[in-house]
């Protein structure tokens, strides 16, 4: 048997040679992975590993409203139980549900922070949503088994995306293909301007985003949102993009993960604080029933677990459409105001008085 392995039948040699060629190409691709990752970052993985790179004093988690809405630099410096907390990080996972945020938080915080802020909104708890990026990018085998056993209805779905994620990591060429493409566009456009201007624009935006992700404590707002103005868009008659994240609204399964997050925080000695994220009046009106259910669940959770919930409503913040880039994401001005507001509220809370 060993002989047959040592010397494969000659007609299979072309296949063996092709496989060797693929392995060699993959090794070369792997050798330059830093370059590809810079040109096309996996933002979930980048944020989680970026946060985990060093012990953090406070961490902010949540979906895209957090990614666009909290600048840890502005939030930092608040007093918490006699200590000034400076080193913070925002793990804003765009499109994440509460389940994804839980998994993101436990991997982003190998050393428990003193304070964990979860910027939550209604769409995080919508069980009609199943977002593949979390299982694809963040899950460990333990997370997968836990999910599959606790949520048998979505066991097949989570298994598929988890395995796809693992398999894609086994083939570097496939994993980094977008990064290679972006790198090639930058290189070609640099040498021969006009060759592929559209791709080069996208590549430059990816490079900017990647740089921000690595240097700005997770605050890497999307270019379109930074200067975006929802009021201006409305005045121009631009119809907002469809917001399907609150369709078929129901809660239950993702809510379990909110309890798991609270359990984990309690076990790790972390002070968990929820921030009910601000939204536009239009979204509130459009999905009134969904937001009513969400707020009811949030109230129940607050009462049951004794977790602080800071309600960053439009009224409290004095926000109008001017502060938003679209129906749910804040622009640069709104993000700055919200971050400052959170700094102030945390300072109050850390000083012993409940906000």
């Amino acid at each position: 048997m060993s002989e047959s392995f040592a010397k494969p039948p000659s007609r299979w040699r072309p296949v063996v040679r092709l496989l060797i060629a693929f392995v060699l190409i993959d090794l070369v691709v792997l050798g330059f992975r830093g370059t590809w990752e810079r040109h096309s970052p996996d933002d979930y993985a980048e944020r989680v590993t970026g946060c985990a790179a060093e012990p953090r004093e406070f961490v902010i988690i949540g979906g895209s409203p957090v990614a666009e809405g909290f600048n840890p630099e502005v939030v930092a410096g608040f007093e918490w139980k006699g200590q000034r907390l400076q080193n913070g990080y925002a793990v804003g996972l765009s499109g994440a549900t509460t389940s994804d945020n839980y998994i993101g938080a436990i991997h982003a915080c190998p050393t428990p922070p003193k304070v964990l802020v979860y910027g939550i909104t209604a769409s995080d708890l919508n069980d009609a949503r199943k977002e593949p990026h979390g299982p694809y990018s963040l899950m460990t085998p333990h997370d997968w088994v836990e999910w599959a056993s606790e949520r048998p209805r979505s066991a097949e779905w989570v298994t598929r995306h988890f395995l796809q994620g693992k398999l894609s990591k086994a083939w570097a060429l496939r994993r980094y293909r977008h990064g290679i493409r972006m790198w090639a566009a930058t290189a070609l456009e640099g040498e021969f301007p006009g060759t592929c201007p559209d791709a080069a624009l996208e590549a430059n935006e990816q490079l900017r985003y990647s740089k921000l992700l690595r240097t700005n404590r997770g605050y890497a707002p999307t270019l379109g949102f930074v200067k975006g103005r929802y009021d201006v868009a409305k005045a121009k008659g631009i119809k907002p993009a469809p917001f399907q994240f609150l369709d078929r609204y129901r809660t239950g399964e993702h809510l379990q993960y909110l309890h798991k997050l609270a359990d984990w925080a309690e076990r790790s000695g972390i002070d968990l604080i929820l921030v009910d994220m601000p939204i536009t009046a239009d979204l509130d009106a459009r999905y009134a029933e969904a937001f009513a259910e969400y707020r009811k669940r949030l109230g129940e959770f607050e009462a049951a677990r004794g977790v602080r919930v800071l309600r960053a409503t439009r009224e409290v913040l004095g926000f109008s459409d001017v502060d938003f880039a679209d129906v749910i994401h804040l622009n640069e001005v709104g993000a700055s105001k919200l971050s400052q507001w959170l700094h102030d509220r945390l300072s109050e809370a850390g000083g012993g008085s409940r906000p």
Partner: protein
Amino acid sequence: MIFANKAFLIFLPIVLVLYHGLNRRTHKYLVLTLASWAFYAFVSPQYLWVILLLTAIDYVAGRMIEDARDDRVRKTWLTVSIVSNLALLFAFKYSMFAYDNLAWLGQDLGYSIPSRAWYILLPLGISFHTFQGISYTIDVYRRQIPAVRSALDYALFVAFFPQLAAGPIVRAVEFLPQMVTPPSVSAKQISDGLWLFATGLFKKLLIADSLDVLFVSPVFDNPTAYDDATHRWAAIAWAVQIYCDFSGYTDMALGIAKWFGFELPGNFRLPYLATNIADFWRRWHVSLSSWLRDYLYFPLGGSRGGAVRTYFNLMVLFVLCGLWHGAAWNWLAYGAFNGVLMGLHRAFDRLLTGISWADSLRASPGWKVFAWVGSSFQFLIGLVLIRMVDWHGGLLLIRSLVGAEHAAETASNSPFVPQIAGAPGLVVLLICLGLLGHVVGLLQECRWLRAARLPEFARSMIAALAIAGVLAFGPGVSKTFIYIQF
């Protein structure tokens, strides 16, 4: 489920393992036939009966032709086969075109014919397997081949999935002898198959699809928005796209067939190196042009019936060739255009052949370059006819090709920055890549480069790099192969 599709990449290994795992001839061919029908049913499930019916008719017709002693019976069965194939081909492919034109003509003459409110989807590969069936019964009728006695063998010959969707059109005489015993696969066949599959995939997904998305479709869909230089580049890019699309498909078909041990005939012989129109048709879609020559041109009398009859035959041949590709006026125009060019070329050739100074001039390198440029220009005009969205746009593009100037109407809408005299550098790069094989072929024809097989590992490395290139740089979604729509 066509070659560049994820489902096919699951289907193919399963069929290969099953086929090579079985020992008995019947079992192997049964698996391959069922797989081929499954391949067909995946794309055209509602039309599986078409290929089954025509297979049954042609199989029975072949046997009856061979067994009959009376020539009238032989002729009757041959007619049954030809009429069945052509009737279904006409019904599916040409009935809409015929109805639309009848309605248009009727309305012009004052009759009230309602506009068409129905649509017929084309069954997969009907233009190819009907021609394959017809050639088989004709060959049996001509006693050039014996009739196939095994229904399974005949079914596999018709449905063999690598060539089912878009050819090449395989003759029974080329395929059936290979079926006598299941061919064993050699290392060379596996290696050549990998090479052909990888390069075919590269040509299709990277070159043809990228050219289409980046340049050809934007310009052809809205030619008035672009200037004359962009029109000329778009015509060249389209020529490279259609070549890479179709020859890429053929390469993959040939490569896959090799993994089952079968050799299919090639379809392309560096067509864009042709120095006249007759030469072009000897190099482009060879299995179709040779089929039309053997089963249409020669039976019509070929060149044996005098000059007028020959030119008439040529025109019939090319008009039908055009219509074979598609039931539309622009395809008919393409066929007629090629028929006229063939006639002119024949007249020119007959006028000058035998005149010593003309013969020596035509053999000179300078004349060959001149002839190549002139011929390429003709091909480009023909290709514009088949890609144009409407006659106005097509004529505008042809005007640009012949040198007329056209200022872009909405230059600011350009999806790309013109870089090299009207085309983005990436398009020029893709065009060069698409014609690389032609350059190598030309160097070999001129004996400036020795035709040598690359070392095996280098071939494997290039094949792997081609697939890697497709993965990294190909457009995410592949377009349907152009010839599958014919």
